């Protein structure tokens, strides 16, 4: 690949497109101006009613001074809106990286992966002749992605996901980081923020039109007069025109903006080759991404807003016209023309994907897990202002020391973790059927373990079940996809062994499913469908009712408290109708609510649980499971206080 030539082409293309973008903005301003001038002219004319309408007449009577001053005002308004947005988004790189959940790597890190990434950043800084930017890592993200942020090289930062740091080889990571350096060097962040700000200015015209349109139609309905009001008609046409200009202009400008962004990606790919002189590095990185189950997805809430910064597409896009990145295979083809179209399959290395924070804090793993288990329960106690729970004996170790040691050990290795989760579902009455299921599942080493653990855990205090599950889940990420498949089937067989599903079983299964499914299968996130709580009344009533019936002595009052927090007139469903099945259906519906609603739903649930001043472990487990299902996981310290 002749990377200098590729760079020239990409630079020329993006310059042309930027010019086109500028022309489009100008044309839009002129169009808006003509529309406004026309509206004023017709209003004048209808007021005087002196002449026939005619295009010639129009040109003669246009007051050119007015025409230009109107143009000035429009450009000024667009400029102000654009400036406002520019100021809003052009924060320093470190602010952006931290907003996306990045952790700044200390320069004296000892983790070999972090060390390697940091060395690579310094190497590329040399190759590109730039100052060394700080490196951030997104610890929670397992997709392979990276971004550069900041509007000038001086405040730029580079960030990589944990997935990219661990899953890529040295050469591949070098290619990815070289790509990001190109974005810094070419000032791509500055350009894309500018374009986005301008785009906002254009859509602002449409917003004004929409407001005008709505106000005039409303005024009409209110008056319902037969008399034709000309100025009203003009306002209506004006509103419609502005709205259309804003809409079409927005679409056009959006397409141009995405085309520019794509050219910048090609440029960055070619520059990565220039810096590393190794086209295989970045081409292989792209191939690995194509074959990697989590792909380039980044889950952080703000990632979409900043998608243009990333190395790969952050979210799946239906319409590639608006995508910020060219398709993967086209990027690879440019780097490696002889590519046979096959991606590189690389299995996620789960052990390395877990950031080793415990060791950094100088805390051994086991005591950290214990502390976590303890903190979960105490935290709940404190947050819910619950005096009796505060005296609850919190650590597994304190209740039964000899059990604690083996359990903690088991929770840290995959087979043990599987047996522990299954053991929580073990029941003496159905032991036979469950033992058969384990044998049929063909997971070597599991037989015997489950029954034994089941007997041991039968006496486990209910408040320790949730911490135990939470300890097992990270370990379970380490099993293979087929093993997971079998484990999940086994889990279902265990749950159905007694021919009925109780609430705890439902919670356990949902927690496992929502925590582990993204590891082994590609998940499409649920599309938000419900924008108002009113649409969800039925499901909300079932969810709150189930929770109220579970914990409180005074079900009706606890339920009323939740309804009050949501500010909805909900009816408590008859207790007999509350089963696992309708409950599960209700929660599935809640999962399609808009994210902001989910937070208030969780708040309402918490207040129901805390109504009697006591949060029992079953309630806590249920809330956690619901949070997992509706994809709005809440860390313990975020659970709202339920003070009545």
């Amino acid at each position, binding site marked *: 690949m002749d990377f200098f030539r590729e760079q020239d082409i990409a630079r020329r293309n993006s310059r042309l497109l930027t010019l086109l973008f500028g022309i489009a903005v100008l044309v839009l301003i002129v169009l808006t101006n003509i529309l406004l001038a026309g509206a004023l002219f017709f209003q004048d004319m209808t007021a005087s009613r002196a002449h026939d309408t005619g295009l010639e007449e129009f040109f003669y009577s246009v007051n050119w001074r007015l025409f230009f001053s109107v143009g000035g005002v429009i450009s000024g308004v667009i400029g102000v809106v654009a400036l406002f947005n520019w100021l809003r988004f052009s924060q320093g790189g470190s602010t952006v990286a931290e907003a996306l959940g990045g952790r700044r790597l200390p320069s004296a890190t000892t983790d*070999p992966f972090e*060390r*390697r990434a940091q*060395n*690579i950043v*310094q*190497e*590329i800084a*040399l*190759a*590109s*002749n730039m100052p060394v930017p700080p490196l951030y890592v997104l610890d929670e993200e397992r997709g392979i992605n990276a971004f550069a942020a900041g509007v000038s090289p001086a405040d730029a930062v580079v960030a990589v996901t944990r997935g990219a740091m661990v899953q890529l080889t*040295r050469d591949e990571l*070098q290619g990815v980081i070289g790509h990001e350096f190109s974005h810094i060097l070419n000032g791509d962040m500055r350009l894309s923020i500018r374009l986005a700000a301008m785009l906002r200015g254009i859509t602002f015209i449409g917003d004004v039109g929409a407001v005008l349109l709505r106000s005039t139609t409303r005024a009409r309905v209110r008056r319902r007069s037969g008399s034709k009001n000309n100025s009203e008609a003009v306002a209506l046409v004006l509103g419609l025109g502005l709205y259309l200009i804003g809409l079409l202009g927005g679409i056009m400008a959006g397409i141009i903006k995405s085309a520019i962004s794509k050219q910048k990606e090609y440029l960055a790919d070619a520059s990565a080759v*220039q*810096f590393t*002189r190794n086209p295989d590095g970045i081409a292989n990185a792209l191939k690995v991404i194509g074959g990697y189950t989590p792909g380039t997805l980044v889950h952080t809430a703000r990632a979409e807003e900043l998608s243009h910064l990333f190395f790969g597409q952050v979210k799946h896009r239906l319409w590639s016209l608006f995508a910020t990145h060219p398709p993967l295979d086209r990027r690879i083809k440019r780097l490696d023309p002889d590519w046979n179209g096959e991606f590189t399959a690389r299995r996620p290395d789960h052990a390395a994907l877990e950031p080793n924070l415990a060791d950094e804090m100088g805390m051994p793993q086991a005591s950290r897990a214990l502390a976590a288990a303890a903190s979960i329960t105490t935290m709940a106690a404190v947050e819910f202002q619950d005096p009796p729970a505060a005296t609850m004996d919190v650590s597994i170790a304190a209740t039964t020391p000899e059990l604690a040691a083996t359990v903690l050990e088991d929770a840290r290795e995959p087979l043990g973790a599987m047996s522990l989760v299954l053991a929580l579902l073990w029941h003496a009455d159905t032991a036979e059927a469950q033992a058969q299921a384990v044998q049929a599942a063909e997971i070597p080493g599991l037989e015997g373990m489950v029954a034994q653990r089941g007997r041991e855990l039968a006496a486990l205090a209910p408040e320790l079940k949730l911490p135990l599950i939470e300890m097992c889940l990270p370990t379970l990420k380490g099993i293979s996809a087929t093993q997971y498949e079998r484990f999940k089937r086994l889990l279902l067989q265990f749950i159905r062994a007694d021919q009925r599903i109780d609430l705890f079983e439902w919670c356990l299964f949902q927690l496992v499913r929502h925590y582990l499914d993204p590891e082994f299968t590609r998940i499409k996130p649920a599309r938000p469908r419900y924008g108002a709580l009113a649409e969800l009344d039925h499901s909300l009533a079932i969810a709150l009712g189930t929770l109220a019936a579970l914990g409180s002595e005074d079900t009706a009052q606890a339920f009323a408290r939740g309804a009050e927090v949501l500010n909805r007139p909900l009816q408590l469903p008859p207790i007999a109708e509350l089963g696992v099945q309708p409950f599960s259906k209700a929660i599935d519906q809640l999962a399609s609510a808009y994210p902001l609603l989910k937070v208030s739903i969780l708040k309402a649930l918490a207040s129901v649980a805390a109504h009697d001043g006591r949060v029992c472990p079953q309630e806590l487990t249920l809330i956690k499971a619901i949070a997992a299902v509706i994809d709005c996981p809440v860390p313990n310290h975020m659970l709202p206080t339920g003070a009545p």
Partner: protein
Amino acid sequence: MSVQSIVLLSTLAILCLWSIAIYNQLVALGNRHKNAFAQIEVQLKRRHDLIPNLVETAKGYLQHERETLEAVISARNEASAALQAVTASNIDPGAVKNLSGAEGLLGSALGKLNVVMEAYPDLKASSNMQQLSEELASTENRVAFARQGFNDSVMGYNTYRQSFPNVLIANFFGHREDASLLEFEDSPQIQTAPSVKFS
């Protein structure tokens, strides 16, 4: 003031601003490639500092390879002295030639050590050694990238200087000469294929 003089004056002003922009860009590009040269020196020094650690770590495992280790140390000392001579002589071409010869020797001594280490899995597996070899790999890259970065920025400077109309302004304001690319003094060695002898 007549219309003509206004047009004339504004054209002159625009031309003036344009020349200033071109001149500033020339200065920026020129400084960039000078900085790039300083980086090469820094990275060579970094490599010289790393090698004693490497040898110290390897010593415990490589009791029977004293010769190889000593060769590395002496090559490193020579290269380090040559680098100092270059800095002292203010980049004298002869000293640069000496330095690149010494660096070549050091590179081949390190290569030999690497081959020897292949036979000692314990050594390769030790976390200390893994850390060191990551640092060394990174340093090798840095030396190469610093050279390459220097050449890239020289190319950028020359292309900018030679293109029209920049070339007029460059010649007028003292950017008359192209910067020269850094060439390997050991190019003949690189170009001949390595010979393998079986004896």
